[in-house]
């Protein structure tokens, strides 16, 4: 994203509890936030409940992400 290339401090703090809580509430293994970085998609934050389905930092092209 072009608006800002620094660190998302507030998001980082919020993400930890929000992802965990969503996984609990929806009873789903993995909840993650994927960030668009130019033509790529990067897993910015992830919560895996039991099985590690998605890894933080994983990056793929935007087209391949769907």
């Amino acid at each position, binding site marked *: 994203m072009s*608006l800002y290339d620094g660190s998302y401090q507030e998001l980082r703090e919020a993400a930890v509890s929000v992802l965990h809580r*969503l996984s609990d509430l929806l009873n789903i293994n993995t909840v993650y936030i994927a960030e*668009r970085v130019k033509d790529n998609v990067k897993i910015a934050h992830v919560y895996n409940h039991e099985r590690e389905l998605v890894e933080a930092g994983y990056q793929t092209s935007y087209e391949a992400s769907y």
Partner: protein
Amino acid sequence: MEVTKALQAGTLLGVPILVQNGENYGTLCALDDTSRSFTDEEMKLFSMMGKLLGYVIDVDIERYKTQTANVPLVPLGKGVVILPLTGSVNEKRAEAILERVLAYSTDESPDYMIIDVSGLIAREEAMTEKLLYVVNCLELVGTTAVIIGVRPDQALTLHASQMMSNEVIIKPSMTEALHSIGLKLDWR
């Protein structure tokens, strides 16, 4: 997604995370390796969380903007420039201020920079140190800093950090600051 392909009969739920003027930050996704459906309520909750995360990112962006973009330099002509500092100054913003101020000073080479500190948030002791650093750096590139608008609480910290003993010019008001550098306000 490559991940979902490997999951075969998996579940993927995603909502966009939008920021500010509708720009797309990314996606909030829920993923499982078993097949399942979601109730309306669950999907509403999920989409609301995506929206909320967008607001959280807005906060990050806004903070970044105020910290880095907010270095107002007001040229007064005749080699004098005014820098009114407001709000709070943390490490990041101090860095941005220093960078901007030094760049300006090198380009325009003003003789004096009047720094008004009255708008700074009270009781930020670390600020004094940073201010002194800016003043010293300015001196190196040939600009003399004049500090005005020191409040009582700031005076205490300034004194404590031995700023008084340095060759820092501190004046009580803009009028006196201008007068000290040879400019006179003349009201008619």
